[in-house]
C-alpha cells in the first residue's frame, strides 16, 4: 500500500517536468542557436569595436591594448594610412566637379521625392545615409580613378563588387535564358555549369594563375603569336584586377545561372502561352512576362551575391597577393595584412569600415531594389 502513493508521486513529478519542458520547448529550441551566435558573432563584434578603438603593442610577457579613441579610423581616412584605404587622392578638375554636382543634385531630388510622398523619420535617415555613401563613393572615384592618382582598397573592393556582380548577373541570365530553350542535354549543361561553384576559391586562384601564365601556360602560343608573349599581366594594376575579376566571375556566374534558370522554368506557363497566342515575339515575351516574373528572384539572388562579394579575399590573396603594390587588395585582405603586421587596432578598424560599407550597400539594395521588384505581389 505504501508503494502506490510513491509511484503516483513519481508519475506526477515526471508529468510536471514534461509539461515544463513542453512549455519552454520554444526557448530551448532556439537557445543553442542564440548562444552560438552570441559567442561567435555578437561577442566578437563588440570586442572588435573595442579593438578598433585601441592600439596594440607587444610587451614583456604578453601584450597591451591602449584605448586611443578614433585614432585608427582617423589614420585610415585622413592620416598615414589614407593612401592604403582611400587611395592617393588628386584634386578634382572642373568637369569632375560638374559631374559630382550633377550626381549630388540627383541624390537631393531622390531625397526630395521621398519627403514629398510618404515621409517617415527613420526612412529619411536611412535614405540620407545611402545617399551620403553613394555621393562619397562617387567623389572618391572621381578623385582616384583618372591617371595620376592611385586607388585604395575601398575602391578596389567596390570594383570587384559592383562590376563583378553585374557581369556575373548578366552572364548568368544569358546562360539561363539559353538553357531554358527546348534543347537537348539541358540536364547535362546544368550539371557541368554547376562545377565552378564547388571548386575552392584558393584552387580557382591557382588555376587561373596557371592559365594566365603567358610564357608557360596553355595560351602561350596564342599570346606570343599576338605579340604580347613577354608581357606579364601581374605587373599592371588594371590587368591584375581584371584577372581577379575573371577568376571570381568564372566561379560565381554558375550561382546566378542556377537560380535564374530555376526561376525561368517556374514562370507562369499560361501567361507565356497567352502571349504566344497574342503574337508576342521572343523579345516581347521576355520583356512583358519572363522578366517581371523573375525580377523578385533575380533581385534576391543579386543581393545574396552582393553580401558575399564584399568579403572577397581568397582570389586576390593567392592570385596576386594584393599586388602589384595594393592594386588588387580587397578590404578583407587589407585587414589581414594589418593583422600580420601586429596592427590589431588598424585591422579591426578596416574590418569595421568594411562592415559599414557592406551593410549600408546591402540594406539599401534590399530596401530600394528588392522591395520594388516585389511590388506586384
Amino acid at each position: 500500500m505504501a508503494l502506490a502513493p510513491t509511484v503516483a508521486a513519481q508519475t506526477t513529478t515526471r508529468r510536471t517536468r514534461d509539461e515544463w519542458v513542453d512549455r519552454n520547448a520554444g526557448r530551448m529550441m532556439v537557445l543553442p542557436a542564440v548562444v552560438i551566435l552570441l559567442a561567435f558573432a555578437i561577442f566578437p563584434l563588440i570586442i572588435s569595436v573595442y579593438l578598433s578603438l585601441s592600439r596594440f603593442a607587444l610587451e614583456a610577457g604578453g601584450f597591451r591594448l591602449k584605448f586611443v579613441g578614433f585614432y585608427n579610423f582617423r589614420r585610415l581616412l585622413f592620416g598615414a594610412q589614407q593612401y592604403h584605404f582611400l587611395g592617393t587622392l588628386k584634386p578634382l578638375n572642373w568637369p569632375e566637379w560638374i559631374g559630382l554636382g550633377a550626381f549630388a543634385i540627383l541624390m537631393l531630388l531622390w531625397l526630395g521625392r521621398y519627403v514629398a510622398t510618404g515621409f517617415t523619420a527613420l526612412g529619411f535617415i536611412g535614405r540620407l545615409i545611402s545617399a551620403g555613401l553613394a555621393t562619397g563613393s562617387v567623389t572618391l572615384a572621381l578623385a582616384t580613378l583618372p591617371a595620376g592618382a592611385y586607388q585604395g582598397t575601398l575602391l578596389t573592393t567596390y570594383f570587384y563588387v559592383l562590376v563583378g556582380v553585374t557581369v556575373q548577373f548578366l552572364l548568368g541570365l544569358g546562360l539561363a535564358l539559353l538553357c531554358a530553350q527546348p534543347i537537348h542535354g539541358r540536364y547535362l549543361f546544368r550539371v557541368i555549369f554547376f562545377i565552378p561553384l564547388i571548386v575552392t576559391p584558393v584552387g580557382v586562384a591557382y588555376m587561373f594563375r596557371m592559365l594566365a601564365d603567358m610564357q608557360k601556360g596553355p595560351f602561350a602560343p596564342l599570346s606570343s603569336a599576338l605579340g604580347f608573349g613577354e608581357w606579364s599581366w601581374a605587373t599592371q594594376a588594371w590587368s591584375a584586377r581584371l584577372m581577379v575579376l575573371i577568376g571570381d566571375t568564372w566561379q560565381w556566374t554558375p550561382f546566378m545561372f542556377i537560380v535564374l534558370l530555376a526561376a525561368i522554368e517556374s514562370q507562369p506557363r499560361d501567361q507565356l502561352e497567352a502571349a504566344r497566342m497574342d503574337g508576342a515575339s521572343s523579345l516581347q515575351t521576355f520583356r512583358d512576362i519572363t522578366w517581371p516574373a523573375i525580377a523578385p528572384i533575380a533581385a534576391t539572388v543579386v543581393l545574396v551575391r552582393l553580401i558575399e562579394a564584399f568579403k572577397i579575399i581568397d582570389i586576390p590573396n593567392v592570385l596576386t597577393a594584393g599586388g602589384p603594390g595594393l592594386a588588387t587588395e580587397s578590404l578583407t585582405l587589407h585587414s589581414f595584412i594589418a593583422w600580420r603586421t601586429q596592427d590589431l587596432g588598424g585591422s579591426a578598424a578596416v574590418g569595421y569600415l568594411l562592415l559599414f560599407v557592406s551593410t549600408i550597400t546591402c540594406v539599401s539594395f534590399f530596401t530600394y531594389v528588392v522591395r520594388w521588384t516585389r511590388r506586384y505581389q
Partner: protein
Amino acid sequence: MTRGTDPRPLMRRLFEPRRLDTMAPAPRIFTYAVLGLWTLIVLFPIYWVLVTSFKIELQVDSGPYYLPFVDFQPTLDAWTFMLLQNNTLGPYLNSIVVALASTFLALLIGSLAAYALVRIRFQVKLAAVLTFIVLVIGVIVAVGALDVPWPAALVAAIVLLLLALNTYVRRFNAAVGNNDIEFWMISNRIMPPIVAVLPIYVMFQHLKLLDTQIALISTYTGVNLPIVVWLTRDFFAGIPLDLEESAEIDGASKFRVFFTIALPLVRSGLAATFLLVLILTWNEFLLALFLSNANAQTMPVLVAAQNTTRGPQWWYMSVLIVIMIAPVIAIAGLLQKHIARGLLVGAVKG
C-alpha cells in the same frame, strides 16, 4: 515529324520556329554554340589542372603540353610525392572531419531554431534585449579597460540582468517578435568574417584551443547557422500544420514532433542545405588560416601554403587541387537538382 516542305519565306524559316516546342535553325545554332563555348570555359581550367598533375617539372617549364600520351608522357611522380611523402593526408582528414562535423551541427541547431521560429510565437521584451546589450558592453569595458577580473564582471552582469528583468523591464511592453529574431539571425551573414576573427582568435588562445579541430568546428557552426536558418525556415513553413497538430493532440511533445514528423517531411530541403553548407565549409579559407596551424590545418590552407613553401610548383599544387575538387564534384553532380531547388526556395522568400 516534319510534314512536307516549309512554305515560308527564308527569313521566317531561319528565325521562326516551325512549332511551339521546337527552335528555329538560327537561334538553335546560336544557343548550342554559346552553351558549348561556356562548357569549354568551365571544363578547360579543370582539365588543365588535371593534366598538369601528371607532369614533371621539365614538362611544365618547357612550354605548354596539352594532351597526355600525345604531347607528353604522363607520370605519377607528383601524385606519389604528394600522397605518400608529403603530409597531405593529415590536412585532408582534418578537412573531412571539420566539414562533416560542423555541417551536421549547424544543420541540427539551425533547423531546430528555424522550426521554433516558424511554429512558436516569441515575444522578447525589447527592454530586456537592450539591457542585455548594455551589460555585455559593460563587461567588456570593465575587463578590457578597467582590468576587472572577468569572473567578477560576469557575475555582476548576471545579477544586474536578473535585477533588471524583475523591475523596470516589466514596465515596458515593446517586444521583438519572431520576424525580428529571424532577421537578426539571418543578418549575421552580412558580417565579414574578418571582423569577428580576431576576438575569436584571442578567445581560443585563452582557452588553449588554438589549432584544434574543435576550434574550427565550433567556429564554422557559428558562421553557417544563418544560412541554415534562412533556408530551412521556408521548408518548415511549407509543411501543413495538420500533421503536427494531430501528433500533439495524440500527446507528443514538441521535440518529438520535430524529430519524428517535421524533420522527415523536409528531407530533401535538408539534403540541399547540407550539401550547400558542406561545400562552403570544405572550401573555407580565411577562418582556417587564422585558427589553424600545424595540427588542424585544412586543405585550402595547405593549398595556399604551397605558394610560399615551394614557389610555383604547379604539378604538386595540381594534385592537391584535384583531390580537393573530386569528392565535392561527385557529390554535387549527383544532387545538383536538390541544391537548385533549395536556392530557389530561399530566393523566392528572400
